[in-house]
């Protein structure tokens, strides 16, 4: 046979075999797709991947000094992939560690016996589940780090099968402080800054590939991110943590004392319109507890009451040049207008008094008389035009949504009660924040400025959106300088001699106005139920902060306790006091006593040399200690002596004459635990000097 033909025949033979095999492949495809198709498709439908969104990290909310008000913390849920433990290699890891692991789990979560965990995991292995949740509670990263050292878990995801499912949780480092103002986002309810700035905080979610691992649960596939989520912007607010804290605690105390229904405080920086604190407390139904559930300051539309008299006075001065000294007959404190009677709170009336006095004592009759004298007789429109100029009938477009729309409307034709009642703050709806903004304009030399609570949004340190640039400011002062001078005198008079004289103090001057209005319930004004407020600013001669305190329906035995002067004004003072104490810029400089020189105490003092040197420099004391470290300082006949203070290692030193701060430093460095009582310098110590120091011993100090 021809050699070539032979070779070709052999080739063809093998070719046929391969064709046969190819036929087998096609047959298998047909078989897999049709005969077994249903089975495989069903199996694959249980385990599939799909594209899902990956939540972006929500931005942080910061206070004015950069401290965190709200942030997103990663938390974890502990899951387990039982399939991993089934392979030959990993089975030993599983068998060796499972009992100890279950005991650790039981110890950590404390919810189940270790045997329950054991049977739960083994059942899942038996069922060949791809994923089980070992515990639903959230753990933090420290726990995760610890768990990664546990048996089985320490082998990681692919050998041990441990899965830490990350969940972002919103966390407010200051707890409930400013809860409503900062806001929150729960299922359907969104409030506060978290709501109003939701779109900025939210960021842009990403996309990723997730594997379905069971009923409704998905697991991200490693590296399956398709679009990386863009984290949300950071919100920098104007909230000052200290002022917010003071406002909140003062208001809460006052509300608890008076058992009022609700209350709010807003503190605003006069020159900038920045809200430094905003707190709203509401009494929980049938309890004596208060919580932030509604933002009264922004949304609570009510009759403002007497605080509105400021607007009337400014209008009178601007339009008719009213003088503080103009005399008004208030008579017996009663006045009939149409079919209504207007009354003053002092039942006997104030007689004939000056306009200044009308304001100081918040005389309704006096105010109404002045109003009728000037704005009556067909001049009503001018009054409402002025209120419009004061921005009082316009919405604030405040950053927290929704925005309340104030309601002030001129009376209908023939309504003679409209004007006088409006002028004392009845028959209209305004929020505390709207009233505060007006008062702030007076404090800010007539310059009206929109309140803001969010300064800017940022990405890391880059400012994304500066809201200060968008802040509405009225270029034209709302009143003349002369009016300002007159009306400020009235506001100061309220605290000097008037309804709020109880908050007068020597350190700094407060200017403001009380407001006590009867509550409108079912269309009728009720006696005995009041809405009290105090709005003002301080220090009166160079206003730095303006503040509104509103307390709704305080209860008390005495009638006076229900009024603004007793309910709201003291809260204002408490807040103002603390802000004043903390803000050194507001303090008047103490004049240096030129003749007195430096007075020295004869007490023995122990202090660190560097501290002594710093103090001496400031006070101009020339003699300085020559040694380093701790020194004993004693003054005799107006001269200071220094001595080196011995502080031997391993021994208790003499602490008498040391400040607590220094004593703590010295003792804790030696390993002592310190307990102390009293204020001042250390007077006596429970372990005498020279005794050998033992670690973890407690030493008691008495300060004086």
């Amino acid at each position, binding site marked *: 046979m021809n*050699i*070539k033909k*032979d*070779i*070709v025949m*052999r*080739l*063809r033979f*093998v*070719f046929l075999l*391969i*064709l046969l*095999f*190819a036929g*087998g*492949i*096609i047959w*298998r*495809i*047909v078989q*897999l*797709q049709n005969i*077994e*198709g249903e*089975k*495989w*498709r069903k*199996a*694959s439908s249980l*385990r*599939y*991947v799909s594209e899902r969104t990956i939540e972006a990290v929500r931005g942080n909310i910061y206070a004015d000094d950069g401290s965190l008000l709200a942030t997103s913390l990663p938390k974890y849920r502990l899951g387990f992939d039982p*399939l991993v433990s*089934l*392979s*030959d290699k990993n089975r030993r890891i599983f068998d060796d560690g499972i009992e100890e692991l279950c005991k650790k789990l039981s110890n950590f979560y404390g919810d189940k016996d270790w045997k329950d965990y054991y049977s739960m995991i083994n059942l899942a292995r038996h069922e060949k589940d791809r994923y089980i949740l070992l515990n639903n509670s959230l753990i933090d990263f420290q726990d995760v780090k610890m768990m990664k050292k546990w048996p089985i878990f320490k082998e990681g995801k692919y050998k041990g099968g441990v899965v830490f499912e990350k969940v972002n949780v919103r966390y407010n480092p200051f707890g409930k402080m400013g809860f409503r103002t900062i806001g929150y986002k729960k299922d359907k309810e969104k409030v506060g800054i978290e709501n109003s700035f939701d779109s900025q905080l939210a960021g842009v979610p990403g996309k990723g*590939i997730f*594997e379905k691992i069971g009923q409704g649960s998905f697991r991200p*596939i*490693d*590296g*399956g*991110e*398709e679009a990386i989520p863009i984290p949300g912007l950071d919100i920098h607010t104007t909230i000052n943590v200290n002022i917010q804290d003071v406002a909140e605690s003062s208001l809460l105390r006052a509300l608890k004392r008076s058992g009022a229904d609700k209350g709010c405080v807003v503190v605003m920086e006069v020159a900038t319109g920045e809200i430094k604190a905003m707190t709203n407390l509401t009494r929980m139904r049938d309890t004596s507890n208060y919580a932030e559930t509604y933002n009264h300051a922004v949304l609570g539309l009510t009759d403002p009451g007497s605080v509105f008299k400021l607007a009337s006075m400014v209008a009178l001065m601007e339009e008719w040049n009213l003088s503080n000294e103009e005399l008004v007959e208030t008579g017996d404190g009663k006045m009939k207008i149409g079919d209504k009677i207007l009354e003053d709170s002092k039942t006997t009336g104030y007689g004939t008094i000056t306009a200044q006095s009308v304001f100081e004592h918040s005389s309704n009759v006096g105010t109404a008389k002045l109003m009728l004298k000037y704005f009556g007789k067909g001049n009503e429109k001018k009054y409402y035009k002025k209120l419009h100029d004061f921005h009082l009938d316009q919405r604030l477009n405040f950053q927290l949504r929704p925005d309340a729309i104030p309601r002030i409307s001129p009376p209908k034709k023939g309504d003679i009660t409209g004007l006088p009642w409006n002028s004392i703050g009845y028959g209209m709806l305004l929020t505390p924040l709207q009233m505060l903004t007006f008062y702030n304009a007076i404090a800010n030399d007539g310059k009206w400025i929109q309140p803001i609570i969010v300064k800017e949004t940022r990405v890391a340190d880059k400012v994304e959106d500066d809201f200060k640039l968008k802040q509405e400011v009225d270029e034209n002062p709302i009143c003349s300088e002369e009016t300002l001078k007159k009306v400020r005198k009235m506001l100061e008079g309220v605290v000097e001699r008037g309804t709020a004289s109880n908050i007068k103090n020597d350190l700094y001057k407060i200017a403001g106005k009380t407001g006590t209005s009867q509550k409108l319930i079912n269309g009728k004004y009720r006696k005995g139920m009041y809405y009290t407020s105090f709005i003002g600013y301080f220090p009166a001669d160079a206003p730095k902060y303006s503040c509104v305190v509103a307390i709704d329906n305080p209860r008390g035995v005495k009638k006076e306790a229900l009024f603004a002067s007793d309910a709201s004004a003291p809260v204002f003072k408490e807040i103002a006091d603390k802000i004043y104490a903390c803000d050194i810029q507001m303090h008047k400089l103490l004049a240096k006593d030129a003749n007195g020189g430096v007075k020295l105490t004869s007490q023995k003092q122990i202090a660190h040399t560097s501290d002594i040197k710093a103090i001496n420099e400031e006070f101009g004391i020339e003699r300085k200690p020559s040694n380093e470290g701790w020194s004993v300082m004693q003054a005799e006949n107006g001269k200071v002596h220094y001595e080196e203070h011995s502080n031997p290692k391993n021994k208790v030193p003499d602490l008498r004459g040391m400040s607590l701060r220094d004593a703590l430093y010295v003792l804790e460095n030696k390993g002592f635990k310190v307990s102390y009582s009293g204020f001042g310098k250390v007077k006596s110590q429970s372990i005498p000097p020279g005794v050998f120091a033992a670690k973890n011993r407690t030493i008691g100090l008495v300060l004086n």
Partner: protein
Amino acid sequence: MVTNWLKSNLKGDHQIWTIVAALSMISIIVVSSASGKLAVMASGGIFYHIFKHIILVSLGLGSMWFFHRLDYHRFAMYSNAGVILSFALLIYAYKFEQGINHANRWIHVGGLTFMPSDLAKLSLITNLAAMLAKRQHVSYTFNEILPMIVKIILVCSAIALTNVSTSLLLFTTCFLLMFFGRVPSQYLLLALAGIFITATLLVMTGTGSRIETARNRVINFASGLKGTKKKDASQTSDYQIERSFYAIANGGVLGKGPGKSQQRYFLTESESDFIYAIIIEEWGMIGGVFVLGLYLWFLYRGMKAVDSSGRAFGGLLSAGLTFSLVIQAMVHMGVATGLGPVTGQNLPLLSMGGSSLLFTGAMVGIIIAVSRDKVNNPIL
């Protein structure tokens, strides 16, 4: 213009060029989809892997073009040295290289990786074809056959140390080549006995890093056939095979469409060892049969080259290389459809790969070179 350029530059069997062009195009499309997963996992960006693959495919075609212009007869002279070199490299890789998944199959040269088994395959087939061609007009004697069988067994064992399935494939090809070369049946049996004894020795002594894996896979496959498989036997290969079946079953007749594969996320080697499953998932039975048809067509054209080649060396060389390539493809498709145990075999010319694409290109280039013969040397 273009046709003229092609005619003057692409010599040899134009049908083979067409098949290769079609496979390269399919390769780029399918690998782009299958490596979608890789692309997002790597830091290099979405298109890094696709771009890299296109470059490699182009280099493979370049190597093909380069080899098809050479005089293949010269390879006969170098082939013996090639066999010795590749044997040394195989042992070196086994001893000194750190591999992926304990499979130290690669040698790293600079930033490139290179599989000595590819060189071994090419040189052993060429060498064998040369040796067999010399014997076509005289009958075989034991003394001449023995060196052949020893070479085959040595090289195959060296490959088996790190890659059992490639070793078996190469042995099958060599065996077929001896069959085509009309080696008498007693010597064929001798070769079979030789590889069987060597295999037994390797398994008994536990030499080689992948012997155990191969044994497990075969046992697993066999027990699957017998239906005696233990529930939790070797999860990993079962997992792969199951995913491959999911892919095929979900593909249907027309497929889900390009880029729609689900199983690529689960099949760890979706862009290489299981690309056929992905092709069927995305392009359906039609795509699967089309690709299978391309390989059969290729085999047919390779045989045609034998048919028309002037001398025995060319014919045997072309046959050996064609069968080596197509059998590998058949094994790949057989694994994906569950006809055989899991092996790590690529679909040649289609899968993603590095240096192997260059060697495959060289192999196809040589096949085309042989097909040019008929023009120069019409008849023996």
